[in-house]
């Protein structure tokens, strides 16, 4: 009996404590919050040093740092958004002079000069760097000169047009400017833990696995007086939790899955979408000496394309937040830059009957074995469901598919080592401007790159080689258009869908265009008072 009384007392005490917590008032009005809080499913490597990051996530870096060349929200180089207010090139396109914004200071009070820009670029090209485009810059840049504190000259080994875009916010983080004196005095490790930049927000704290917090500078040339005193990025891997935080008013922006968009919209949460943020692209692993059979036969590649019902995949797997893609490796944000028009004839119809005929013509009427590697990817929680659907479509036309569940690094090793010729893998390749698309093609569609090549076509190799040397933009555009056309006509891969990425926001956040800059959310608009 006494035991029972103690139990009841304990239960009442527990209820009392919980009740107290429940009764505490919660502030949910965004107007009262001096804080912008963004909940994301992944921070990628979670490192704050731009040279150790950048090929996946730029969200938080772009608020703390400035790039040498800024961009508009749709990724076009802009003299208003970066540290260079203007730039010009020599007639042979080998000397690029950048004029720097005056009076810009780092968060520790040091003035930003050409020395910092030179130091940053050399650091980004250094051996420690893992940024997306360090390799091509190492190959291309011959010298970096600093004739004046507000001027920097980049000399290249060959004529090129790519320098401003490579050093802009449009691509990776090679163009991020970091403080030379601070890093030389404190070392790389201290900088990575307590980064100092020139951006509108300065670093406050990072708790790995939890959050990154930054606070506004008084005024910044990029966005004026920042609208929020603090910005916090919260790492919340589970979507249910991100949505619960949004409902509770604890976060203002959260990345959400495509399948929960309707539910959130019904509840009145605005959902902003980055359209065509990635292309879901499928390819076959090449053999050490090129195309393996039977994919060596163009008819087989076409048949495998025709066997896939892209519209159904877009609707049933991606909840309608995707559109069929017609061009292998066809990064559509580049199409507008180079004037490439996707015609209705380029779209692959869903035609299993014709697929079967083509397979029969290619001598594969009785089918062949095909391993489909199935894995999840960041931004693609539907990965395994998609792989199952893909295998199902191919089964219908007689291909004997086998699903091989792995994680992506395991597939990538097979791919680059070419140890499993003919097997199928996929990736949600981030969309990007023409120069980024070119850099991707140079790796995934260029024979000499070997490691990642998925195309093995001497004609395309020749065109890619010409793009790098070409300085006439119109000729570059024509070459790029021809590359895309040939990728489509030869069926070098299975372009499946363009993925739209939704971000739900609090009901009071207001207007926001998340833009179309690779790996960036373009939060400037939210933070800007201009």
């Amino acid at each position, binding site marked *: 009996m006494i035991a029972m009384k103690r*139990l009841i007392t304990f239960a009442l005490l527990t209820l009392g404590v919980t009740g107290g917590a429940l009764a505490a008032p919660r502030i949910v009005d965004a107007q009262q919050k001096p804080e912008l809080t963004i909940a994301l499913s992944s921070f990628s490597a*979670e*490192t704050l*040093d731009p040279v150790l990051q950048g090929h996946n996530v730029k969200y938080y870096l772009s608020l703390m740092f400035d790039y040498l060349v800024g961009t508009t929200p749709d990724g076009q180089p802009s003299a208003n958004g970066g540290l260079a207010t203007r730039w010009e090139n020599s007639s042979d396109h080998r000397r690029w002079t950048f004029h720097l914004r005056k009076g810009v200071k780092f968060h520790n009070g040091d003035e930003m000069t050409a020395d910092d820009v030179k130091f940053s670029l050399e650091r980004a090209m250094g*051996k420690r760097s*893992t940024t997306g485009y360090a390799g091509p810059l190492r190959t291309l840049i011959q010298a970096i000169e600093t004739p004046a504190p507000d001027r920097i000259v980049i000399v290249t080994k060959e004529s090129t047009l790519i320098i401003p875009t490579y050093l802009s916010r449009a691509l990776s983080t090679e163009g991020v400017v970091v403080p030379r004196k601070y890093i030389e005095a404190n070392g790389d490790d201290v900088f990575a833990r307590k980064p100092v930049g020139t951006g509108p927000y300065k670093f406050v704290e990072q708790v790995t696995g939890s959050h990154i917090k930054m606070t506004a500078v008084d005024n910044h040339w990029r966005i004026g007086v920042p609208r929020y005193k603090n910005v916090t990025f919260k790492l*919340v891997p589970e979507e249910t*939790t991100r949505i619960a935080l949004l409902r509770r008013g604890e976060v203002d922006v959260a990345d959400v899955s495509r399948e929960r968009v309707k539910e959130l919209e019904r509840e009145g949460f605005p959902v902003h979408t980055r359209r065509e943020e990635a292309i879901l692209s499928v390819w076959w692993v090449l053999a050490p000496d090129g195309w393996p059979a039977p994919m060596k036969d163009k008819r087989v590649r076409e048949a495998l394309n025709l066997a896939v019902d892209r519209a159904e995949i877009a609707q049933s797997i991606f909840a309608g937040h995707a559109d069929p893609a017609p061009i292998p490796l066809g990064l559509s944000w580049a199409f507008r830059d180079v004037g490439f028009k996707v015609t209705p004839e380029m779209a692959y119809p869903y035609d299993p009957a014709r697929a079967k005929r083509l397979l029969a013509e290619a001598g594969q009427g009785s089918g062949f074995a095909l391993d489909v590697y199935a894995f999840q990817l960041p931004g693609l929680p539907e990965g395994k469901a998609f792989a199952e659907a893909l295998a199902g479509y191919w089964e219908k036309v007689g291909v004997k598919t086998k699903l091989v569940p792995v994680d992506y690094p395991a597939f990538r090793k097979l791919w680059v080592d070419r140890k499993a010729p003919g097997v199928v893998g996929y990736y949600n390749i981030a969309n990007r401007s023409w120069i980024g698309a070119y850099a991707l093609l140079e*790796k995934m569609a260029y024979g000499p790159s070997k490691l990642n090549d998925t195309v093995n076509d001497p004609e395309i190799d020749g065109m890619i080689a010409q793009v790098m040397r070409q300085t006439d933009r119109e000729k570059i555009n024509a070459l790029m258009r021809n590359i895309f056309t040939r990728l489509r006509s030869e069926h070098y891969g299975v372009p499946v869908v363009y993925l739209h990425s939704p971000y739900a926001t609090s009901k009071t956040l207001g207007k926001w265009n998340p833009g179309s800059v690779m790996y960036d959310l373009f939060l400037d608009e939210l933070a800007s008072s201009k």
Partner: protein
Amino acid sequence: MIRFAGIRILQSLIALAILSVVVFALARATGDPLHMILPMNATAEDYANARAYLGLDRPYVEQYLSFVGRVVQGDFGTSLRARRPVLELIQERLPNSLRLAVFAMTVSLAMAFPLGVIAAVNKGRAVDRIAQLISVLGQSLPTFWVAIVLVEFVAGRLQWLPAGGISGFASYVLPGFTLGWFVVAGMMRLLRSGMLEVLDSEYVKLARVKGVVEYRVVWLHALKNALIPVVTFAGIYFSILVTTAIVVETVFAWPGLGRLAYDGITSRDFPVIQAVVLVTGVIVAVVNLCVDCLYAVIDPRIRYAR
């Protein structure tokens, strides 16, 4: 007792040494971390540079000896992913896991003890059936499901408690309950069966015959003798709660050791994987040692037997 503790410590050190070899070998057997660190368009030269910079181009034996040499000095190396000293990451995460585990264990002990004892004393009655239902649900409902339901309804819809992250006492309630419920269930069942056995023993009957008050018979004499399996269970589960609460830490955005391990595994971050496994090994060894010592306190016959 000291000799016994010394032998157990020596055994633990040997086990940790073997563990270090196994984890070193297995981590490397799972793939190349550079495939995760470097961008998709990295060249062969980029791979070679990164491999040399990170020391992954050295022979395995050299890498292992270097790793062991540093570990004995308290240096677990640098995370390949976060590029920070692994010890720092462990120091950041371990206290969060320990706090959550202590909270969950406290909740589960506070619930399991009264429930287990009352269920045993009231065998076959309604209260026993309710306790058994709680036990069955706790062990059969998957942790991830319980966690998601609590986040969706208690935090998201009803907005009673925080959904995730560490923000004061209230933020411990949902993850602590989710973790603790499973332990409550197991512990309660063990305690109930132990109590039933003890309550039927001769010395308990003798105590009753001698007129000892019932609550003293149950809560003092019987409970103490039913504790041995419960202490073992609690010890094992405390280690598990600290080191492998991956699901709960992921759902509740809790920056603990389990998620550090998960991130390390998915990104092939060898130094992190090795450090977490070794730290886990140390925690298990220490907890087991404590449990062995507790046996002796609870039942002096165990001490004499050794």
